[in-house]
């Protein structure tokens, strides 16, 4: 495992954040399987070191954009379970008053500009967020999360070109989990993903996305440099999703083997790996870690219980928030 300069508290928070993501996803999966959760959702389990390694290198005023597989980014950027579960269940107290759901969860307060159900859809938004920082002379940095599949979208090359020309403080973080839906990356991505960024003059790195310290150390460095105007940067994070593409994607053998899945889970799990390191280094004892895990589990259980009992938005909300400064879009005078 790569070394970093952060201290015990940072290590423990990183660990806790990874466990919080895993726990959130396990709980959400249960909700879905027991038909308590409406719609569709995409699990982040297996990729925790990516979101946490990166977001722990950011401050609250730094911003991220997220994807359809967005719960991990949301937790890592500081969101609370309660508002998250409320959102997934379409409740009024959700981050988006239930209007967004899993695929549009956002947490403006912590700098999460939102998940996006259009693959690649937030690449422009992230670049624009970095543009604002530069225009207003602020030093905050924006991280744009997207998957390997999203590298096929032309939008990426359009905005990387502008980010490079204008030296914007944005980091493009490609979560390469080996698949886009039911198709292996090699079948949909020609050449080299990092070379594509480099061709636009953007410094690019490939990193083990299962090693939270490696991810964090590199990101800390790049964030610091981006704050000084040395951006943009590109990261390709090699990782793996444990579940299907979405919660209903159960029979996966036509596109990937059980052996492959087992190998990643048994030998490269980011939480298990980091936990081992923490104990080895004497940062925490097994008992302390178990206590953390239990506390997080408890938090999740309480939050989900709360969310299940929480109120749906009132029917009158249906035409609210269509337009800023217009309370009800369909009020007679504007209809």
């Amino acid at each position: 495992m790569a070394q970093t300069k952060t201290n015990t508290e940072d290590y423990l928070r990183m660990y806790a954040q990874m466990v919080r993501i895993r726990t959130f996803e396990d709980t959400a999966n249960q909700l879905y399987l027991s038909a308590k959760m409406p719609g569709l959702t995409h699990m982040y389990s297996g990729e925790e070191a990516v979101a946490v390694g990166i977001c722990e290198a950011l401050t609250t005023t730094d911003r991220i954009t997220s994807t359809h597989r967005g719960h991990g980014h949301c937790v890592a950027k500081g969101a609370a379970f309660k508002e998250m579960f409320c959102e997934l269940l379409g409740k009024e107290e959700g981050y988006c008053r239930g209007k967004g759901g899993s695929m549009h969860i956002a947490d403006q307060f912590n700098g999460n500009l939102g998940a996006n159900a259009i693959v690649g859809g937030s690449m422009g938004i992230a670049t624009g967020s970095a543009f604002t920082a530069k225009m207003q002379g602020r030093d905050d940095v924006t991280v744009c999360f997207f998957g390997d599949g999203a590298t096929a979208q032309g939008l990426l090359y359009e905005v990387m070109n502008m980010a490079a020309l204008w030296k914007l403080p944005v980091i493009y973080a490609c979560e390469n989990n080996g698949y886009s839906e039911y198709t292996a990356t090699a079948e949909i991505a020609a050449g080299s993903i990092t070379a594509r960024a480099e061709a636009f003059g953007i410094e690019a790195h490939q990193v083990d996305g299962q090693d939270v310290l490696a991810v964090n150390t590199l990101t800390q460095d790049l964030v610091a440099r981006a704050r000084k105007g040395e951006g943009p940067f590109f990261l390709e994070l090699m990782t793996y999703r444990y579940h299907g593409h979405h919660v209903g994607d159960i029979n996966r053998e036509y596109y990937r083997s059980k052996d492959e899945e087992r190998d990643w889970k048994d030998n490269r799990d980011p939480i298990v790996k980091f936990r081992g390191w923490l104990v080895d280094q004497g940062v925490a004892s097994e008992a302390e870690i178990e206590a953390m895990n239990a506390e997080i589990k408890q938090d999740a259980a309480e939050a989900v219980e709360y969310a299940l009992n929480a109120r749906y938005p009132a029917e009158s909300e249906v035409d609210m928030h269509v337009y800023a400064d217009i309370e009800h879009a369909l009020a007679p005078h504007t209809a």
Partner: protein
Amino acid sequence: MREITLSQAVNEALAEEMRRDDTVFIIGEDVAEAGTPFKVLSGLVEEFGTGRVVDTPIAEPGFMGLAVGAAMTGTRPVVDLMFGDFLYLIMDQLCNQAAKTHYMSGGKMRAPLVVRTNLGATRRSAAQHSQSLHALVAHIPGLKVALPSSAYEAKGLMKTAIRDNNPVVIFEDKLMYNDKAPVPEEEFLIPFGEANIKRPGTDITLIGTSSMVQVCEKAAEILSCEGIEAEVIDPRTIVPLDEATLLASAKKTSRVIVVDEGHQSYGVTGEIASRINEKAFYHLDAPVLRMGAMDVPVPFSPALEDLTVPTPEAVAEAARRLMSGEMIHAA
């Protein structure tokens, strides 16, 4: 007659046309082994191979553009656009290129291709996976637009679309993939521009498209119990539009409601209502009413989402108002 699902009907249509004409191919995301997330295309790659059931990267503008070029040079692509909401991404290639190729070349080139995609809300898929955007393409000359309302139409319209020498956009209702309907074993095609009178009636005309045909039929059942006999008409294609059938019904019943799942404003209902108003005005006892989806992005919360789409009860209620002569708006 045997009953099959809408999904099977589409699958059969594609298989039959691909057997008949080896220039037909399918292109889109996860269409081959996966057979699409909705599993509509299962089995096709086994029969036709990956050369004709082509998995693409996630690059909608790119594979749409590729399809235009392929169509211009002698093939008949069926572009699989996973969600209708992604239409926005292919608008340039579809509307600036495919739709105008024949005209701009003075009739010398053509782009015979099909975009098969879907529409429909109430699936808890939120604002970017629930839109019904057929009005956008209906506005663009050079495109034809088909809206199957059952497995039967899904098959017959798809086969016609593939044989058509123009770009056709066909929207399936994604909530209907598992709905069964009688579909003949023997080959059939449904010509474009021929509306279908789903249910004859004399008192009021309900024009419904796609998902809203069933809504209108259910409304007609409710109304029938109350002694109101509604005629339900499914235009099946909105470009070309079978005005004659719609006008004949309007003139017969003197009262019309147009129901469509696209947003109401600047959408499909306005066009159909206007044509009827224009051309059957003096036969109408009341203004043509329109019911589209609410003019709001589709909310995720089930508590809100269901409010945004016309229901049989709402259509029946509007029909009652029209019948009673009580017209809220018309002051």
